[in-house]
């Protein structure tokens, strides 16, 4: 069941790349998202923080139109470039997926098809929204690989996902996501499965993609440090509701909601700071 009960009044929301006002419920279970209201401006990096089960991925899937419409009751609206995504037909949604809105999932090795070579996977992504010669396709996918600092030679393109490191696999996923230069990139826990050094490299890559191509990024994470490092604004999602939303520095340095305060207090500290805290406690 889909219903459009959204009235756009605020100017920033009208001008936004994406503006959502959404409630999602699976059958008779308690709602996963309850009146979530957020907007993503052109070219900004918006962080979405929440613990596991808070509804972060459901929001991402709803934006992409990948929630099962028969089983899920989604009410409200998701306006993207003037169209309400909740009212679009599957064919229209499919033409947006990958071309205008792209996704990068958490686990790079399981998100790449183990049975297909990297070249095939990139070509498939290109062919989903483009037509042309193999040379055009190869040229585009090589550029995409170069934009994420990966080799674009034939040896690399012949590799299977199992023959790559996790960091390389994540870069390939990002390359697939940016093949069509989407206006919005959704990174769903895209750095959570990575070690800290690879995580820093991928964050730097996201920042470059944002700055070089003006690509807006919805950066979904439960890692406050990475959100602080990359996001312009941040939304805190707790039990299906946005409890705090605003400038990243403001939200993370002077949180107003009790849940945000708890999140910040639970954030792991550097050893030196921990030692100092222990000494002070004694």
């Amino acid at each position, binding site marked *: 069941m889909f219903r459009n009960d959204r009235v756009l009044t605020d100017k920033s929301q009208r001008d936004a790349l994406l503006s959502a006002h959404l409630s999602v419920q699976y059958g008779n279970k308690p709602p996963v998202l309850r009146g979530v209201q957020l907007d993503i401006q052109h070219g900004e990096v918006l962080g979405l923080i929440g613990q596991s089960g808070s509804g972060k991925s459901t929001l991402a899937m709803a934006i992409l139109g990948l929630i099962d419409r028969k089983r899920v009751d989604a009410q409200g609206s998701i306006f993207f470039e003037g169209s309400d995504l909740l009212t679009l037909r599957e064919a229209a949604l499919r033409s947006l997926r990958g071309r205008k809105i792209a996704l990068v999932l958490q686990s790079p090795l399981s998100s790449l098809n*183990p049975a297909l070579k990297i070249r095939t996977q990139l070509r498939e*992504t290109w062919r989903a929204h483009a037509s042309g010669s193999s040379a055009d396709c190869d040229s585009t996918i090589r550029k995409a690989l170069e934009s994420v600092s990966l080799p674009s030679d034939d040896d690399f393109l012949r590799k299977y996902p199992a023959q790559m490191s996790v960091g390389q696999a994540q870069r390939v996923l990002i390359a*697939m996501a940016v093949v069509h230069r989407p206006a919005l990139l959704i990174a769903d826990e895209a750095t959570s499965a990575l070690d800290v050094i690879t995580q820093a490299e991928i964050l730097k890559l996201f920042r470059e993609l944002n700055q070089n191509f003006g690509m807006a990024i919805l950066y979904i994470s439960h890692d406050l440090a990475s959100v602080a490092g990359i996001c312009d604004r941040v939304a805190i999602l707790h039990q299906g509701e946005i409890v705090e939303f605003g400038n990243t520095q403001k939200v993370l340095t002077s949180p107003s909601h009790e849940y945000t305060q708890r999140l910040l207090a639970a954030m792991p500290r550097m050893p030196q700071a921990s030692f100092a805290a222990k000494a002070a406690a004694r």
Partner: protein
Amino acid sequence: MSFWRRVACAVLLLVVAVSLGASSLAPAGYAKQDREAAGAPPSHAHWLGTDEIGRDRFARVLYGTRISLFLAPAAALISTLLAALVGGLAGYLGGAWARAAMAITDLFLSLPWLFLLITVRALLPLNVSPAFSVLVTFLILGLLGWTAAARVLCATGGSLRNTDFVRQARASGIRGTRLFWIHVLPNMKPVLYAQFWISIPAFILSEANLGILGLGVAEPLPSWGSLLKELEGLVSVGEEPWKFVPLLLLVIVVTSFQLVLSKQDEVAA
């Protein structure tokens, strides 16, 4: 590869090679009748003797092996493709598609396999040319033998539907049909291979069963089934032991397949 698996592979290769060389090894052919030597025991001219109308049994075993051994994989290919299409696709689509496909599959599985084969074959014309009888026999095997494999592939398709790489491909805007053929089907390969190889010995035995009942490959073309039919009138095992050669060959080939397949099962698991 274990010693016994290597032996099994060598045996299968040898049987295939010998059956391919049937025209050189048994130049008399499978249909030529030597009325002077009807029902003769093994001799220099007829290594395995002759049947009741004087046809060289060795030639018939070689040509029968060729027919059984080459058409069983063809039937296995048909059944595996059908299983992939019906079971794999329904499992991938899920919901009502999967339930409907599994209801049909269960209906087929609830019928005894051999009786189903006999009934369907008996419903079709029996007085057909030998070449057509070969086609009909193995087409029936292929068209009716997909159900067990479909069940396995339905479960495989269902589990692949919820994988991250399929979700990622959908998020890239790849269409449903292309998603199945290019992204899902290649991941069913280990199961498809295993089902294909498992079906071959089952179909060889099924063809032999139909042949014994006179519903398999039509005369004068030989097959393991029609050769085994000779054992019907045998009074004692020791009387004409050379008549057991087709049976022995069938046992050796099916056992060899099972030994080779133990590896395929591991791959599918």
